[in-house]
């Protein structure tokens, strides 16, 4: 019952450049939050850790809090500060 979940991580702009991937698929433990997904990413790529303070995130293309629970199959996106317009 403690089977891990699989999420798709989407990265944009400088975050994507740092990691070198637009999209990752990662296994995460049940009951994981967006923050847990981010922490795992920061362990894998320490250079992204500095972004933790100025990060927005979205789950399934909807803005979410870092405390939001993640479900199996979710798409979790991490967004550096925006600059549209």
């Amino acid at each position, binding site marked *: 019952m403690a089977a891990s979940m699989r999420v798709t991580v*989407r990265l*944009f*702009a*400088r975050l994507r*450049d740092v990691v070198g991937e637009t999209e990752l698929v990662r296994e995460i433990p049940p009951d994981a939050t967006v923050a847990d997904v981010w922490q795992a990413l920061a362990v894998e790529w320490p250079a992204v850790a500095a972004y933790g303070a*100025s*990060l*927005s995130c*979205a789950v399934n*293309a*909807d*803005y979410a809090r870092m405390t939001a629970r993640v479900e199996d199959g979710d798409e979790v*996106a991490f*967004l*550096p*500060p*925006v*600059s*549209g*317009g």
Partner: protein
Amino acid sequence: MAVSRFTITREPLILRALVEAVLEAHHDDARATGRPSPGAAASFVGLVRNENAGRRVLYLEYEAYEPLALAVFERITNEVNKRWPEVVLGIHHRIGRLDVGQPSVAIVASSPHRAEASGACRYVIERVKQIAPIWKREVFDGGETWIEGAVADPEDEAAAAEAWRRACA
């Protein structure tokens, strides 16, 4: 057939097409509901400028998280319509490589009266810059850099209030 009023596109932006789409939607709504037809259409076009922060800009590369950007455009529209139900909006944002002088964003707001059309248009560009998941990388004479502005937080009421203030509303 009219273009969509909300889009993220790699194609050049056509302000005329967006104005027509907004006015057509407004006239359709006016006919259906008996509300007044539009008396004003305010537009805003953002263009790639040849300099930024003292750097000579060569071109910009825009990218977007498209489904979320479209959801944000809808959210901004709801924010406007909560204050001004009679305003009809359209927002087109371009992505990809944009050279100096090319339009990156086009916004149109129609309303029976000019104050609401002008205010809505200004509010929308402020909100797009605050919360739309869109990024630009600036390639300038001597290097390149990601431009990073606001930490996007649609629930930040101080940011929304600042956008209303700039819209003079």
